[in-house]
């Protein structure tokens, strides 16, 4: 990262692993459970959050000195709502099928704790460039988990990736299915996402013991 100083780089890299919004801060779990049955939806959701959080953080950071602290939550909500509506309309215009899959969860980005959390914790106290990096970093950290969960859930649950069959045809029994393999229906339902996220958290904390909270 020649472009960024070490401190700036950490703003992006930290949320990817050791300060991940989902696995460490345990924020934004709801959407992570709801839409990760397909990889495509996970990716689009991640991109939407990336856009909203990146732009939102910059806007809040620019306004940070003129927002009266008493009404800052309302201002933050207006900013995030505006951005979410843009995302929602774009999805409806260019990816209608997908926006139906994501359904209400795009709208619910407004209430995603990660976004309000970053506005409050970072953008209100830092400059636009740093806030931008922080927003991108956190959104990527969120996206990484979504994509990992989506990958396993779609692969094991439907035998496809991005809707493309990769394990063969389950009805014609080709590929892996000819050996008697079957899709795992459990991975389609939301509780499976909770368990996959749990396993990621488990693996991450076993690797880095410093992350384990004291009981």
């Amino acid at each position: 990262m020649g472009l960024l100083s070490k401190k700036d780089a950490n703003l992006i890299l930290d949320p990817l692993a050791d300060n991940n919004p989902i696995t460490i801060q345990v924020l934004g779990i709801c959407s992570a459970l709801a839409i990760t049955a397909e990889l495509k939806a996970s990716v689009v959701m991640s991109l939407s959050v990336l856009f909203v959080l990146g732009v939102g953080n910059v806007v809040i950071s620019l306004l940070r000195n003129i927002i009266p602290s008493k009404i800052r939550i309302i201002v933050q909500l207006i900013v995030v709502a505006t951005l979410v509506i843009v995302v929602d309309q774009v999805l409806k215009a260019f990816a209608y099928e997908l926006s139906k899959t994501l359904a209400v969860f795009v709208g619910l980005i407004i209430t995603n704790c990660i976004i309000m959390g970053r506005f409050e914790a970072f953008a209100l106290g830092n400059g636009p460039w740093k806030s931008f990096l922080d927003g991108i970093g956190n959104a990527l950290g969120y996206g990484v988990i979504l994509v990992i969960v989506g990958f396993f859930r779609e692969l094991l649950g439907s035998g496809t990736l991005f809707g493309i069959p990769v394990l063969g045809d389950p009805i014609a029994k080709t590929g892996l299915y000819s050996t008697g393999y079957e899709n795992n229906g459990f991975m389609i339902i939301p509780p499976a996402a909770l368990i996959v996220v749990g396993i990621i958290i488990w693996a991450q904390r076993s690797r880095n013991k410093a992350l384990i909270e004291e009981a």
Partner: protein
Amino acid sequence: MGLKEKLHQTKLKYQGKKMAPAFNAIHTFLYAPNETTHNGSHVRGADDLKRTMNTVIMALVPCLLFGMFNTGYQHSAAIDGFPENFSLFEHFLTWDNFWLGLITILPLVIVSYGVGLAVEFVFAVIKGHEVEEGYLVTGMLVPLIVPVDIPLWMLAVAVVFGVVIGKEVFGGTGMNILNPALTIRAFLFFAYPTWMSGDKVWVHGAVDGVTKAGSTDAISGETVLGYLAQGNTADISYSLSDMFYGFIPGSVGETSTLLILLGGLFLIFSKIASWRIMVSAVIGALAMGLIFNGVVAAEWIPEYSKFYGLMNFEFWQHLLVGGLAFGIVYMATDPVTGSQTNRGKWIYGFLIGFLSVMIRVFNPGYPEGVFLAILLMNVFAPTIDHYVVRGNIKRRMKRLKNATIYPKTSGEVEALTTETV
């Protein structure tokens, strides 16, 4: 020098070596350890975890053997039709039946134990403790609560899931919230529903398309509950004695209510399982069954309703079919996941029976609910215990407050009353 002595010598020889846990495991599996405590005196019972587990396994063996005979019996009955004049020794307890059952069910047992113990072993090595014997019962329960023709790899995946997610993540044997055997079954049910329900999986060979004698129709066999859930109100083709003795299709070990009853009595008299849970679960199931019968009798639900068939089913017959009896005797009584307090056990058991029959009737996909009811109550068991204990404390506090305290000298009265408040 007897075997016991030899094992003890071997143990001493390998003490502190890497293989020590393996020898210790075999030694204590066969005999009570001859170690003595060094500090103070302790009373030690011989009924340690291994003894408890082995007793439950002994109670399960009749069900396993019956399941083997029944597999063969159901298979041949599906091909040739049920025998006109059923004779126990001519049609059921035959070598052919047993052999067919043996070669279908033994792989299930081997996979269940092999995979489960492998997982236990891996965790024991990682966490650095001796291999725990908690899987012994689970490993025997699992083959008994799945359909005969479940593919072995599915069973293996489910066992890994059940042991890791159901038990090891909580800290291993004795720390689990959910019964691992039921976690395995629930996983199979949600992951591979086509292999856990319908009319093809309960009879050996039906999935592979074995045909009936003298026709091209593939064999099939529904469970009694499946038949009722289809909305069939006609008489069930199995007699009550068939249901009681267990000559009906179903999961491997769950069919014979008689043997389960005997196993249950054995567990009660050996004081391994709680009779309170068993009795209250039976009461709960009967209560729910009576309510449903009452709804039908009051004509609150029309005959074309899809619940009519199961609601109309005689309330006490719910205990004879499906996995209800098996679940109540062997799974609900799991000392780790069940309630610990005596009053809690009554509540816990009652709700298991009550919910089992309720889920059984209202479950649209699959007319069975015992495993779901027990898992649900497993989650609630600590809450039940908490309130039972709190209630106890409250009652005793009240008793203490109202108690009159007679001091030896009159001057102590006030000091004592202030202390107790």
